[in-house]
């Protein structure tokens, strides 16, 4: 009937009205987003500022991951095992990634590669952290502080990824490559047959993440130096 038809149209109109902000988001791609992922406005942000923010993010992520690792260590890891990083052949999941591991190496690689390395790292850690969250929840007496920190870190990691992507677009004029590295070496984390204790496995995971967070931070800082003062940075 016409009345119901009218009603449907009206409903549709109302829904359209309610959902119109989504249209905006659709029309505004990632480069409009701030690093933190807020959609509200799309002011253009300068590259330096963006890089600064990304670096801040990486710094904070590193600090929190360090705190989480210490918490976990104190809580669950018996003392004799604390310093052994190479537990029974455990390797960090990102081992396979082609990431430079010395300063000289780093100084030789290009900006592009630096950024890519960072992105690789970030993307490879998003899922393992979520996995870590679930395992930590299964612990009997995991302190809330630890759980909150890991949760926070995984959230921040996502925003860091977004920021790096935007940065890449700005700096390198590259397209969206978000999915390029996601499949990298992700599967490794659940294949640890030597690990008998999940506690140690989680501990290793946290340590690896801590290290990788530091890597990200360092790369970004080096990148910043290169951006601001290219010649002085490269020479050392």
């Amino acid at each position: 009937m016409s009345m119901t038809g009218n009603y449907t149209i009206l409903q549709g109109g109302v829904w359209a009205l309610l959902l119109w902000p989504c249209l905006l988001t659709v029309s505004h791609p990632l480069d409009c987003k701030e690093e933190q992922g807020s959609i509200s406005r799309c002011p253009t942000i300068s590259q330096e500022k963006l890089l600064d923010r990304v670096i801040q993010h990486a710094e904070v992520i590193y600090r929190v991951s360090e705190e989480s690792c210490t918490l976990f260590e104190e809580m669950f890891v018996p003392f004799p095992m604390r310093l052994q990083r190479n537990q029974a052949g455990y390797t960090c999941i990102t081992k396979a990634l082609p990431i430079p591991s010395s300063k000289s190496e780093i100084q030789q690689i290009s900006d592009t590669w630096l950024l890519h390395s960072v992105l690789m790292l970030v993307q490879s850690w998003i899922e393992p952290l979520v996995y870590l969250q679930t395992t930590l929840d299964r612990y009997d007496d995991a302190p809330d502080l630890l759980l909150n920190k890991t949760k926070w870190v995984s959230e921040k990691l996502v925003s860091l990824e977004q920021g790096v992507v935007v940065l890449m677009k700005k700096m390198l004029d590259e397209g969206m490559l978000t999915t390029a590295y996601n499949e990298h070496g992700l599967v490794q984390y659940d294949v640890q047959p030597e690990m008998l204790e999940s506690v140690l496995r989680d501990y290793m995971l946290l340590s690896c993440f801590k290290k990788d967070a530091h890597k990200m931070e360092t790369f970004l800082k080096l990148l910043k130096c290169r951006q601001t003062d290219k010649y002085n940075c490269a020479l050392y």
Partner: protein
Amino acid sequence: MRRAVGSVPLLLMLFFIGHAKETRYSPPGKPKLTSCRSPEKETFTCWWEPGSDGGLPTTYALYYRKENSDAVYECPDYHTAGENSCFFNKNDTSIWVNYNITVVATNALGSNFSDPVDVDVVYIVQPHTPENVTVTVMEDKDGPFLRVSWEPPRKADTRSGWITLIYELRVKLEGEEEWEEHRAGQQKMFNIFSLRSGGMYLVQVRCKPDHGFWSEWSSTTYIKVPDYFPRETSVWILIAVFSAFIFFILTWILNLKSNSVKHCLLPPVPGPKIKGFDKQLLKNGRSEEVFSALVVPGFPPTTSSDCEDLLVEYLEVYTPEEQELILEEGKDLQEGCLKSKGSPSDSDSGRGSCDSHTLLMEKCGEGEGKEEKHQERAQKGKRQQKHQTGWEEGDVSHTREDVLSPDMSEGRVKTWPSVFSPLPQYSSRPLDHQGSLETARQLCLSDSLFPPPSTSSHLSYNAKEGLALGSGQQEFYLGKKQTHPSNPQSQPRWHLQAHSDFNISSMDRKQAASGLQLPGFRSTEYVEVQRVNQEDMVILQPLFSSSCQRDGHLQIGQGEDYSKVKGVDSGNMLLLQREVEVKREEEDGDRYSCDIQDRVTESCYTTSTAASSQVTGKPTSCAGTAMPVQEEMVLAANGYVDAATMLL
């Protein structure tokens, strides 16, 4: 013999050799890796501690393995870092990579491996101390402060962001033990405030990467702060001086005016001023003696007396033609005298001196100073009146003290106003008690002039002269000799008011005054006790020798006249004597036009603890007075009972 001697050293040698041969050589003890440090995250050094060497020369070798690789490498550099150390240069250093390091001690007999140690260069960074620590004194509006600045250690590459350092500095005064530490973050400069002037400060700085160890403290820098005068102190000194100054001035002023201040803050407590009252006796606690001293022999009068005898001489004090004065005086009296507008149960005789129930019953400590106040006020009033009007007998002295004869108790004097309110016939106006109040007061004041009546066993007072209130009647009557000719028959009517509820508002007074007429109804009135009701209340009524002409309500009856006090019995009961019969009932609230305050004091008297008065209707009547009778009835020397006190 010689052979034996020669063989001793040989034997000794053999012995020693044999001993030497018994010393054990062993493989070396286990070495121990003590620490590995990297100063700038680009190179690192590891140190170990050798174990026992087993007596043989021992060599040490360090082997390392990078994480997840099985290749074993030996330390590239054993010498750069000193004894028992291994130095990894830039090319051999990988960051974020775990090194598995082992030290091996080897000697001729064997070798010994140390426990492996995992090292990640990133986590073992301990930078050198900051360099070029400079401290300068800078000036600010608040005073001087120190500015400390430094540079990162030379080798640390903070510029490229490879390593991020945070700094910390500490300061202390020379001679102190505790350092004051400050975190400076990543900045290379810091300000220190709140310095002691003239102090010598020591400053040190150190740094640490965000993921490593603190460096050593830099060498101490000395700095001396110049002398300065802190501004805050000078302000405080100024304030202190100023306050001290003000304080001294205030003290001086206070000193000058100490008397008035004392008077204001601590009004003098009136002491009892009853003639014949001995404070000492009171202090001794013998109240019987005290009060017995007050008792005047011959009271209560037992002889009957006629109306004339009942007349009490007093000096009427009121002002003729001067309303304002009267008003003034009224006001004056009012403040102390008047309190209630006929509150029915006013136990506080905050009435004027004339009205105070305490006048008669002089009990030590009883009037809470009211007495004095009343006296004072009465005095004041008296004086005023004195000034205003000329007395027909000019030498009337109003001061109570003058007049009072020694045997006259002050109570008596004071009782006057409270005892009666003369009611001249202010018939034209419903004379409010104010008028009579006024008069009463005046009467009271003038009471002092009266010599103690010989027969004063009555409770009624004879306002013989008639009271002229206010402007209406400006007459005064002096002494008992004067009987107002104009009203030969009028008798002043007295209302026994135990406490006068006079409402002397000026308004009222004016009214009263204006309403005064002086026709001649000025005569003293007797209040007579009509009866004693069951509540031990003495019901009084005025005694009319002649009826009030104007009024038809007069019911001068032939009731009982209990206007004479026979005595006080042991139970502190006031024994009244019957005399004339007066029949008037006053329970109604009517007012006698002649005599407005007719009933005012009726039933105001109680012989024992009071009940409410029975007078109703009249605001100023003693209706409001519900003062219980005092336990001790102090009779005035001349036999007048202070109704007010009775009602206390």
